[in-house]
């Protein structure tokens, strides 16, 4: 066995020396990864695409019945799909927008001369590494209307108790608040990294020219930081579209359908409706929207780089 392996190995080396590499170490190293990825990413993706044109359910797991665009049209005709779509788009825009603005502000503050920076960094990374389910459960207790700390503090300040998760108007914002609390660190850290890596010279030049802090920010910092900021927004947008755990733990899409985000809609179609074909179709509709957004963002980024 050992002899055979050695012989094979030697033959490979000779082949390589003759200019015909049979397998370079590089290919050999990536082959297992590529095979694994093909099995766990590409194959399921392709399979679910095929399924989305069939009548595949958990009860009749067959893909031999081609139904064309039926599943897609059914989703588009469902008013609760459009509600979920609306809730999701509103959620993504607001959550990413708020996180970006607040995150940028905090990153600027942290970038300045500040004591105990290490402590702030440590605190900031904690929510990011927590599991969303844990975060949801903790916040659900904090926001408990009668027994939660948040309402207790508010009542002490003379502010009326808030029905955080029980009112359809408020539940959406409560969810947003928790998501911002957890995910803003990501934005801050990425933007911080961007700020730190900016070249010093343009700032020195601006200072010599007598630019104020705001002028420096507007004419130097923001243009230089744009590529990093766009990447941060891009990644967070993709992540926000996939939000699921928080909704599942905190509101289950309710009250009514006020927090019924699309990933939760897909989950229900799959595991309660048992309709994998329909769920795949909705997933591909979501993917299409996300892909368009990514394409737009990438074209902006690439344009920036070209400029």
């Amino acid at each position, binding site marked *: 066995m050992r002899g055979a*392996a*050695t012989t*094979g*190995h030697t033959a*490979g*080396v000779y082949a390589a020396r003759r200019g015909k590499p049979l397998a370079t*170490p590089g290919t*050999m*190293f990536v*082959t*297992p990864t590529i095979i694994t990825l093909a099995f766990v990413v590409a194959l399921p993706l392709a399979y679910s695409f095929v399924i989305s044109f069939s009548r595949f359910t*958990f*009860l009749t*797991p067959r893909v031999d019945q081609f139904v064309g665009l039926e599943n897609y049209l059914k989703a588009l005709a469902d008013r*609760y799909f459009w509600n979920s779509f609306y809730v999701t788009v509103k959620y993504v825009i607001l959550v990413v927008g708020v996180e970006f603005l607040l995150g940028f502000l905090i990153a600027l503050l942290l970038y300045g001369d500040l004591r105990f920076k290490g402590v702030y960094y440590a605190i900031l990374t904690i929510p990011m590494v927590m599991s969303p389910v844990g975060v949801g459960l903790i916040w*659900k207790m904090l926001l*408990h*209307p*009668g*027994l939660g700390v948040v309402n207790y503090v508010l009542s002490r300040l003379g502010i009326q*108790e808030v*029905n*955080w*998760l*029980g*009112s*359809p108007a408020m*539940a959406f914002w409560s969810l947003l608040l928790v998501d911002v609390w957890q995910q803003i660190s990501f934005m801050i850290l990425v933007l911080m990294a961007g700020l730190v890596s900016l070249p010093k010279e343009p700032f020195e030049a601006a200072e010599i020219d007598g630019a104020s802090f705001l002028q420096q920010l507007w004419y130097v910092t923001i243009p230089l930081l744009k590529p990093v900021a766009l990447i941060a927004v891009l990644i967070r947008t993709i992540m926000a579209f996939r939000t699921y755990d928080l909704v*599942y733990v*905190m*509101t*289950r*899409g*309710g*009250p*009514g*359908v*006020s927090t019924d985000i699309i990933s939760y809609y897909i989950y*229900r179609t799959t*595991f*309660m*409706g*048992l309709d994998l074909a329909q769920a795949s179709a909705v997933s591909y509709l979501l993917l299409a929207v996300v892909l368009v957004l990514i394409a737009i963002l990438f074209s902006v980024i690439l344009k920036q780089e070209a400029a």
Partner: protein
Amino acid sequence: MKRSALWILIAVLVLVALPSVAFPQGVTLRMLMEDVPETHIIKALLPEFERKTGVKVQFEIVQYMDMHAKLVPQLLAATSQYDVLEVDNYWAGEFPAAGWLEPLDGYVARDKFDLKVYLPSMLDMVGYYQGKLYMIPMYNYAMGLIYRTDLMKDPKLNELYQKQYGKPLRVPTSVEEYVQVCEFMRKNAGLSGSAMQGARGDPIVMEWSNYLFSMGGDYYDAKWNARINDAKGIRATELYIKNLLENAPKGATAFNLDDAFRVMSQGQAWSMISYWWMLPQLNDPKKSKVVGKVALAPMPGGIGLNGGWGWAIPKNSTHKKEAWEFIKWVESREIVKRRALQGHAPTRTDAFNDPDVLKKYPYYKEALEIIARAKHVPEFQFSAQMIEVTGRELSLAAAKQKTIKQALDDAARELNDLARKANLKK
């Protein structure tokens, strides 16, 4: 360099292939179990089964919400990783209808396994499906009324109630009376009338079903026509939503069982419609401030929601013989009694009537009555979807985004679609 790369590749391949070349040993039964006290009670008894039979048992313990998603792919595969299943009554229609479960009639007849000891309501729910036995009842979670006895004995409240309603204050026996007492307690006892669980999805549906069944309503009629929007359904829903919006704690429209329990255990509600085994939880000084002040009664109106789990064997299990041996053991009189003595929710009448069990848990008498009269949600392929649809519409009505009539009509339309899809409509 190249040589070491080759060795690494071989090592990786060997490691990947290793689990599939199982080490030949005795049979090991694998089971997916919910992370609840019941599972841990059984787990502690497993060494006895292993000693007796030489068969090893391995529990994979997960949260309820992960179970269905983990089970289905296994049941769809050529062979299942799990050899014994615990099947929630939500899936008790889906799993047999999909042909995933081994019929147990043959096993029962061969071994003269006694089914007569089981409560008929349990066998009906997590035993038979369309006349065939697929499950052995394992666990029960029927719902009843848990209320504060100290407040019921309070002379001032009694006097006031008599004055206001012209009748004595007593444990309510109809849904209308229940809502009335809840309102009275909210206005006069300085707490919520009912610690309710109105979160969208199964919490709101489970609780509302008690109101529906006790008012004489149902999901479907005998011919599988949806009837949740008939007069009884509408009245039950009106009372439910009135209680939820007026007499329950603020925010109860987003509460699940845990949230409702916290309110009740902190002494901030007069009652809760809940699982009968929540009573010992409320009598646990570590968790509750109302120890010794709570009692159990049937759902006002008489018929509460039944729920439970059953043991089953997947059709694609490779160890069916051993799986049946396990079910026989875990459901034997001796083991059931020992489980019951540790706080398990039994399904066998002999466990409920056992003097030792009754001595330790006197309220098992009421529990037995609650379970015997309880009714379960319709079981068919789309039970989970039926609950989802109903939950969504009830939550919309509770959020005042739809009228009660409109919400129930919309739910009925979708329920009819589901019955049609399952070929049940007659």
